[in-house]
């Protein structure tokens, strides 16, 4: 064990079965989730809706009790107050006290972490500025838009300058500019040596940020590792964009098993097999159409999640 760093987050065969209603109906939310997140990394928790991502996070945060398995945060058992002091959390679709202003929410959260009044105010003002809400700091949260609530949620998750930040669907509700800001903020956190666990279904953003990911399907971790290892390096398809294609050509290519999609005056053809690219391009030229672009596509994170989900099913 010597020489091994203490993981920022660890679960081993974690399982949770909810007992619901008067008749105590049992619902298995997660059956076997094993994760290990190292300090300083950005870790993506991925999977389809209902896979068990949020339940896993809720167990780790002490919101629900585990049925079996082990779970630790920053080397301490789940629920340990000392670990919670070093933790920041943004819940999915955050709900805060809507009678508070943005500034009041942050100073209230600072008090829960035992920060002095002066330190709490300093952190609050700093974070309000960082998430672009300085101008709305005195406004009651009930007047905030969804994107503003997401921003104040991120600010409250960082009020204690945490070592480990858990963000559940942080990009939901943000406009493209907000998403870009958040990506930059997460990159900043990485620069500061913090660990970020990111649960999201916006896979393009996770792909840009995460060092490693875990894919959860039907309550089980089906794969974990660095994106470079998990993603298939081979070209999985090639997109050919063609201008001036007649309807007959498009139909013939579609009948030939290729994906065909009309985009304005152009047609996008998706070719799965590498050996067929030349044949398709030759045919396009023969029919008098012109090739505008040829783009090889490697496996994306979205493809990977879809592949893993299908394999697990």
């Amino acid at each position, binding site marked *: 064990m010597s020489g091994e760093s203490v993981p920022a987050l660890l679960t081993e065969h974690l399982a949770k079965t*909810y007992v*619901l209603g008067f008749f105590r109906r049992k619902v298995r939310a997660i059956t076997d989730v094993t994760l290990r997140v190292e300090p300083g990394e950005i870790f993506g928790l991925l999977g389809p809706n209902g896979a068990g991502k949020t339940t896993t996070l*809720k167990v780790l*945060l*002490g*919101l*629900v*009790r585990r049925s079996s398995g082990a779970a630790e945060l920053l080397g301490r058992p789940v629920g340990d*107050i*000392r670990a*919670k*002091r070093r*933790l920041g*959390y943004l*819940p999915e*679709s*955050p*709900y*805060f*006290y809507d*009678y*508070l202003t943005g500034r*009041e929410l942050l100073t*209230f*959260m600072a*008090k*829960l*972490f*035992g920060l002095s009044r002066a330190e709490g105010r300093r952190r609050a003002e700093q974070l309000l500025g960082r998430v672009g809400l300085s101008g709305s700091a005195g406004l009651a949260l009930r007047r905030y838009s969804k994107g503003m609530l997401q921003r104040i*949620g991120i600010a*409250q998750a960082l009020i204690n300058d945490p070592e480990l930040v858990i963000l559940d669907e942080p990009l939901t509700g943000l406009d493209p500019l907000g998403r870009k800001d958040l990506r930059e903020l997460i990159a900043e956190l990485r620069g500061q040596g913090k660990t970020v666990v990111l649960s999201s279904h916006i896979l393009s953003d996770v792909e840009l940020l995460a060092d490693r990911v875990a894919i959860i399907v039907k309550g089980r971790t089906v794969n974990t590792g660095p994106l470079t290892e998990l993603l298939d390096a081979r070209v999985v398809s090639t997109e050919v964009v063609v201008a001036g294609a007649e309807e007959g050509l498009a139909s013939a290519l579609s009948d030939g098993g290729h994906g065909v999609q009309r985009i304005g005056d152009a047609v996008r053809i998706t070719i799965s097999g590498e050996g067929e690219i030349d044949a398709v391009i030759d045919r396009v030229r023969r029919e008098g159409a012109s090739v505008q672009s040829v783009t090889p596509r490697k496996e994306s994170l979205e493809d990977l999640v879809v592949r893993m989900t299908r394999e697990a099913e």
Partner: protein
Amino acid sequence: MRVLSTLFAISLNTFREAVRNKVLYSLLFFAVVVIVGSLAFGALSVAEEARLTTDLGLAGMSLFSVIIAIFVGVNLVYKELERKTVYSIIPKPVHRYQFVVGKFFGMMITLAVQLAVMTAVLLVVLGLQGAPLGGAVPKMIVLILFEVMVVTAVAVFFSSFSTPFLSGLFTAGVFVVGRSVPDIQRAAGKIQHTGLGALLKTVTRVVPDLRFFYVSGAETALGHVSVHGAFPDWGYVATAGGYAVLYATLALMLASLLFSRRDFV
């Protein structure tokens, strides 16, 4: 110290929520109307107007404080679950019992402030009538606060595992039974050898004896108790306070235990 500062932060936030809740102002307004309205009733009884104002005022203060305690108390924890605000608090360095107790203290600050406002109105009304302020009125108001403490703790207990509607019904039931404990004890004594007698006896042991707090008009070992005549001394008030603190502590311990076992799905 950290435990206390967390409790204080949660209490202050609960108080802030109550201060910004318009429904509470409506209830407080009605209570003030009842106290001021007692002036009109007092005018009907020329010789006894101050006496009637005091009786109606204190009864109004007690009733409205209990209504507010039940109304807010049963929603205190439930609303946090319903609105999912608890999701952002529990992952913070907060024990679940601190959350329950902090909410309770916040509610008690709110009720104490409301009682202070009602007291101020009652004193103004009595002053307008030129009535002398007897020593029994401050004792009675402190006893009302103790009674409200017990009712709030009972409401928080029920709301830790039940819906606001059912918690409201249960708490109101406890209030009605609690105010009738001496009568139920007498009835149980008459039928002590029956199953019903044993049941009533058990009920009076579990339910708080609220006549302990609302003593005016009661027949006790000291004789007839009245804010206008013989009234227990401050030693009695302190004993009643001890009973209220003990009962509220037990109710909150049970509420915290139930709350700590809950899953926030």
